[in-house]
């Protein structure tokens, strides 16, 4: 091996390929058929189930679990997918510990919830392995809708519109569809090209055209879309990143965490991906955790998350924090970056305690990953925007008639894949009602 975790600088190939393969295997391995039946048997089939209420897409969880228990995983998948067409991805990436599984009555009873996420994956994987989606298009309506953004919000919206017989064109600025499913989600959550396979399976319903390299604001305007199509849905996510403007931000090795993760997700060969020996991640959300854990799994010797408030204030769930700790990431709280130092390339990060003491400390760092939040970028100025989000009311209606928005770019709801799916789906129903009504 050319390099080891102790090699200074940002280099590739710190770990052997088989170690890398093991490190980036499924975080929550799939259940086999027997395990799924055992796990399904634990569900009490609750009345007006609390888990169902906690799911942003309101999947009928007790029903699909019972369908697994009675050995009809395809029926279970249909139950899931009718509410959430990206049920496969959500099964992998949902922070279930703060959603459905958090309120599962077996969590209350014994601190061990029914494994809803893994059961959902079992059903959707089984269905996707067996063939096409269980939905078909209604008779064509002759109406067409433009969807901006091929992330979870845009895809869910496009699929539901297509089901209702509308023609949908999805524009995305990138060269590949999927949004953060493709470029953001941690590699150990969405393994083996799943994001792409899921999209191919989804668009097979027909009536959905994906156009790449088409950015709203650059290649087309909202006005143009509005005149050309009967309705517009914006699901453009948060394409920009926040900046701190600290001394040394321009040094080589200081970069945005989302970019690092995107490179990682697109890498054909993980051993060709460079990572620092001493990595410092700034932030306290899911992105910070994902960047830190993946840097560690790539072979960085020391990885430290520096977060300005306490652990309880971190946006990353307790489960995510524990995952980071388990992988060997150090979490420093109550510190914020004061500057980056080095000669051309970063060598040190200065952190200041946020307790007002004025004390600082310095950490060796040859790579600094900034995970201090994404921001809305390229949203049409004609829309009302507040707090960095396109303001929507009801099922995603923006301030402009005929334009809907959902997902991370729109107000309301958490910035989660499943929330984006719910908002895209609901906007589609509202668009459909307005088009046929």
């Amino acid at each position, binding site marked *: 091996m050319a390099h080891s975790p102790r090699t200074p600088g940002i280099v590739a190939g710190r770990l052997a390929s088989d170690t890398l393969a093991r490190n980036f295997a499924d975080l929550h391995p799939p259940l086999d058929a*027997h395990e799924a039946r055992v796990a399904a048997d*634990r569900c009490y089939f*609750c*009345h007006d189930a*609390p888990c169902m209420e906690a799911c942003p897409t309101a999947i009928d969880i007790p029903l699909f679990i019972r369908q697994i228990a009675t050995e009809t995983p395809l029926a279970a998948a249909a139950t899931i997918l009718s509410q959430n067409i990206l049920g496969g991805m959500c099964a992998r990436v949902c922070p279930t510990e703060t959603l459905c599984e958090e309120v599962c009555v077996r969590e209350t*009873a014994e601190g061990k919830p029914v494994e809803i996420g893994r059961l959902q994956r079992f059903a959707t994987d089984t269905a996707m392995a067996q063939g096409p989606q269980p939905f078909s298009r209604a008779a064509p309506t002759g109406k067409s809708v433009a969807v901006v953004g091929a992330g979870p919000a845009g895809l869910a919206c496009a699929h539901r519109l297509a089901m209702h017989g509308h023609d949908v064109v999805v524009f995305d600025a990138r060269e590949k569809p999927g949004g953060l499913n493709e470029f953001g989600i941690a590699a150990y959550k969405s393994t083996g090209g799943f994001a792409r396979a899921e999209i191919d399976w989804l668009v097979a319903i027909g009536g959905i055209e994906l156009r790449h390299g088409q950015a709203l604001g650059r290649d087309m305007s909202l006005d143009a879309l509005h005149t050309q199509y009967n309705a517009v849905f914006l699901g453009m996510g948060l394409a920009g990143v926040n900046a701190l403007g600290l001394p040394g931000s321009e040094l080589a090795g200081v970069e945005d965490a989302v970019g690092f993760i995107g490179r990682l997700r697109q890498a054909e060969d993980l051993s060709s991906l460079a990572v620092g020996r001493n990595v410092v991640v700034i932030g306290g959300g899911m992105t910070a955790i994902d960047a830190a854990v993946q840097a560690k799994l790539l072979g960085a010797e020391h990885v430290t998350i520096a977060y300005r408030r306490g652990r309880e204030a971190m946006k990353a769930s307790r489960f995510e924090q524990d995952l980071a700790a388990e992988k060997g990431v150090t979490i420093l709280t109550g510190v914020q970056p004061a500057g980056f130092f080095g000669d051309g390339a970063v060598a040190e990060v200065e952190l200041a305690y946020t307790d007002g003491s004025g004390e600082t400390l310095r950490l060796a760092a040859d790579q600094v990953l900034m995970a201090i939040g994404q921001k809305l970028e390229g949203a049409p100025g004609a829309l009302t925007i507040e707090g960095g989000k396109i303001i929507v009311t009801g099922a995603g209606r923006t301030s402009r008639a005929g334009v809907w928005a959902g997902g991370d770019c729109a107000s309301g709801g958490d910035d989660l894949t499943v929330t984006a799916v719910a908002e895209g789906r609901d906007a589609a129903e509202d668009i459909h009602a307005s088009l046929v009504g």
Partner: protein
Amino acid sequence: MTDLTTDFLGIKSPNPFWLASAPPTDKEYNVRRAFEAGWGGVVWKTLGEDGPPIVNVNGPRYGAVWGADRRLLALNNIELITDRPLETNLEEIARVKADYPDRAVIVSLMVPCTEEAWRAILPRVAETGADGIELNFGCPHGMSERGMGSAVGQVPEYIEMVTRWCKQNYDKPVIVKLTPNITDIRYPARAAHKGGADAVSLINTVSSITSVDLDSFSPEPSIDGKGSHGGMCGPAVKPIALNMVAEIARDPECKGLPISGIGGVTTWRDAAEFMALGAGNVQVCTAAMTYGFKVVQEMISGLGDWMGKKGYASTSEFVGQAVPNVTDWQFLNLNYVTKAKIDQDKCIKCGRCFAACEDTSHQAIWMKPGRVFEVNDSECVACNLCINVCPVEDCITMERMAAGSVDPRTGRTVTDDYANWTTHPNNPGSGCAAE
């Protein structure tokens, strides 16, 4: 350690756990290992008359019913009696009995319904030194088509006749094993009693089809695409067996007739329940076939533990203790008024009690904001369904209403007096019906 020594028909065994006549007792190798594991006795796999050995199917002979995590709830078999030569079995029985004088060895028998056939086999069994015989009048498949097994067990006159032949031609205890595949178990038990049986043992397997393959449309176990009914045993049949044991135990015409309890005994607790209902000992098959011979060790330690806690020095002290409490519906106290009560600290808010009561019973559970479930005493008939479906043990309890309080459902004052259906005003047969 509590002494579990049991005397059944004068046959002593170190504990009341016998292996029932079945594959676990089909040969010397098995029985020796069973005794080494601790079983108190065995009823040898049923022997047939001398001649060409019995032929079994060569495909699967068991079907099954599973619960969560493939826990075996019931087995269903289409196996016949022993398919090994009579002489081989008799030699092995003699050797084993000689080596294990402290264990019970009973020989199960099934020969055609002629006195001659029984007279031929009984002396040969006697020569083995076995402690007694058990007449298999229970097997519901295969043998019954040949006029044996349950074909005899379903006709009380035959039971009485064959039992009498055996008592006349064999001088050790004769146990009659009964089939549950009849409408009233007391008739065959009475017949055995009249014929002079020393005891009855029950139940044999329940006629059943456990499942159907929905591709081949064959019942399971499937033999080349066809299946026949089999006999079901295991935990699922225990309630049927308990009731039948109790029916005999409290039947005046069977008074004094010892019972060996069989059917779904899986733990020490099952055994204690059978014995409380009047069984002098128990026989086990499915539990051993599921977990191996070692399972008896839990039965021994568990029963000893419980007896110790209760202060029983011998199994005979609790055998039959529950029999006086088994009665007929008409004698149940109708003035015993209870209401379900939900312990809010234990409740995990699953709502199963609500769904059950609201959809299928008496609309007596409220679902209040915040998923708080409470019983509405004005509607609760105390049916027990909520308790049965609640996943948390002791979360819902039945609380008896104190005498003097008013049942909000009926508006009647609760009394301590006992009153049953026989004297109820709504009963046309009771004295008070006229007015």
